[in-house]
C-alpha cells in the first residue's frame, strides 16, 4: 500500500466509510446506503477541497482515532465533538492540517449522534456497484472499521479552500418530522391516524442505520390481512405488528411487507439521524397521498 493511507487506532462504537450511496439497483435488492447526514458529509468534503460526494468516515456517538501516514487536511462535521491532533485541541467544522504520523482524535459527540471525518483525497476503498459506502443491511462495501484497519486515501485534488466558520448545530430538543400520508394510510384506523399526527413518540435506542425506531402509542390497523411485499423508499414510516412507527434510513430494505403509513420528507432525515435515543418525535402531516 502506498503511504497515502491512514491507520485506525480506535474504531469507536460504529465507524463506517460513507459517500452519497448506491443508486439504481433497488430492483436487485441493493439498498441505497450512504451518509445518514448528507449535508454534513458534503460540507466536510468542501472544507478539505474534495468533491462533495467523496467517501469519508461516519462515526457513531463516540468518534474514532486515526493516524495518517502522510500530511492531510481533515475536517470534522455533523455531530459536534472535540477534535484533537497530537493531543492538542483543534477546530471542529474547519479544515485542519494533520502532519504525517500524528494522531487525530475525533471525540465523543457533545450533541447529536454521527460525526463525519472528511479527509483530503477521500477514502479510496474499492467502489462496489458505484459506491464506497458500507451497507450494514446487506454487507456491501467495506466492513465497519476495526482497530488496526488501514484505509487507502485518494490523491489530493486541489488545495483546500480557506476555512469558513461552521456553526455547530444545536441538538434537536424535539424532532419534528414532516410527513406525507400514504401509500397505506388506509390500512390504519381513523383513531390511529389521529394518534400518529398528534402523539409524542421518543427515539428508541434500537435505532440504527436501517431505521429510526420509535416508542409511543401503537397504531391500530383497520386492515388485518397480509400486505404483499412492495417497494420501500427512504423515509418510509413502516408500521410493523407492534404498531410502533419505524422510519427507514439509508440502509433500509428495498422491499417490505408491512404497511407504510406515511413518508418523511428527505430534508428532515439528516436531523432524524442526529437524534439521540429519548429525543421526543412528532410526525407533522403536511400532505396526504390521495
Amino acid at each position: 500500500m502506498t503511504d497515502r493511507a491512514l491507520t485506525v487506532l480506535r474504531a469507536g462504537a460504529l465507524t463506517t466509510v460513507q459517500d452519497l450511496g448506491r443508486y439504481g439497483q433497488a430492483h436487485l435488492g441493493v439498498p441505497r446506503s450512504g451518509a445518514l447526514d448528507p449535508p454534513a458529509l458534503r460540507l466536510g468534503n468542501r472544507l478539505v477541497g474534495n468533491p462533495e460526494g467523496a467517501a469519508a468516515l461516519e462515526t457513531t456517538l463516540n468518534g474514532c482515532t486515526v493516524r495518517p501516514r502522510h500530511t492531510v487536511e481533515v475536517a470534522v462535521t455533523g455531530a459536534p465533538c472535540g477534535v484533537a491532533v497530537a493531543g492538542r485541541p483543534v477546530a471542529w467544522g474547519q479544515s485542519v492540517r494533520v502532519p504525517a504520523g500524528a494522531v487525530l482524535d475525533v471525540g465523543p459527540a457533545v450533541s447529536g449522534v454521527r460525526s463525519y471525518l472528511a479527509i483530503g483525497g477521500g477514502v479510496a476503498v474499492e467502489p462496489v456497484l458505484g459506491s464506497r459506502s458500507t451497507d450494514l443491511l446487506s454487507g456491501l462495501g467495506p466492513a465497519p472499521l476495526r482497530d488496526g484497519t488501514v484505509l487507502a486515501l485518494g490523491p489530493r485534488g486541489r488545495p483546500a479552500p480557506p476555512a469558513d466558520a461552521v456553526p455547530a448545530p444545536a441538538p434537536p430538543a424535539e424532532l419534528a418530522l414532516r410527513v406525507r400520508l400514504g401509500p397505506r394510510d388506509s390500512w390504519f384506523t381513523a383513531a390511529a391516524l389521529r394518534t400518529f399526527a398528534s402523539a409524542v413518540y421518543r427515539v428508541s435506542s434500537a435505532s440504527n442505520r436501517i431505521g429510526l425506531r420509535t416508542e409511543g402509542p401503537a397504531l391500530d390497523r383497520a386492515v388485518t390481512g397480509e400486505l404483499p411485499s412492495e417497494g420501500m423508499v427512504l423515509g418510509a414510516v413502516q408500521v410493523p405488528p407492534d404498531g410502533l412507527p419505524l422510519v427507514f434510513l439509508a440502509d433500509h430494505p428495498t422491499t417490505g411487507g408491512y404497511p407504510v403509513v406515511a413518508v418523511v420528507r428527505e430534508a428532515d432525515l439528516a436531523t432524524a439521524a442526529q437524534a439521540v435515543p429519548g429525543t421526543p418525535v412528532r410526525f407533522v402531516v403536511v400532505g396526504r397521498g390521495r
Partner: protein
Amino acid sequence: MTATARAYRGTALPVGDRALLVELADGEETAAFHAELLRRRAAGTLPAVREIVPAARTVLLDGLADPAGFAAALRTWELPPPGSSRTDAVSLPVRYDGPDLAEVAARWGVSEEEVVRIHTAAEFRVAFCGFAPGFGYLTGLGERYAVPRRATPRTAVPAGSVGLAGPYTGVYPRSSPGGWQLIGTTDAVLWDVSRDPAALLSPGTRVRFTAVAGDGHEGKDR
C-alpha cells in the same frame, strides 16, 4: 406476439413527494406493466426515474420529478402481453437434499420424489428481488403449492440453499438467517459484485431448476 395489448388498469398511489406506488390487479399485470416501463425507458420515452422496483402486485417508481403528472399520463398506457420475447431461461442445477424436503412433501401430500418432479417441471419467473442483493422471489409453482415460512427461522441458512415460502421459490445468495422451507442446494453463484451483472437473477428472468446427483458437479456453470 399474437396476444393483444390491454389497457392499463392500475392505481397509482403517491409515496412522499417523489415516488409513486403503482398497484396492479395481479402478478401477471404487474409483470406486463414492469416490462412496459423497461421498454419505454430503453426507448427513451420514460420520464427520468431513479429506481423501478417491481414487487408482488406493485411497481415502485422512485425519484420522479412530477409524480402526479406521470400518474395522469399512465391512464393512457396500453400494456403488451409480457414474456413473448425472452432470452433462454437460466438453468439452476439443484441437489434436492434440503432439511425441509420431507415437510414440504407432507404439506403437499406427495412423496419427496414427486416434490422434485413438480419443482423441476415448473417454469419460474423472477417476480421481484429483495431481502438480500440477488435474492429473487420466483413465481411459477402456483398458490396450490404455497407453504408457510418456518415458525422459527434458522439463524444461518447456507449460501445456495433453495427454499419455498408462500407461493415463492428463492435461492439464498449468501449465508444469512432465514425462515424459508429448504428443499435443496445449488452451486450456482447468485450474486458476485465482481461480475457484471452482479445478480444472476433480476426481475423478469425466467428460471428452471434441474435435479442433479449428490456431488453436484454436473451443470455447475450456468
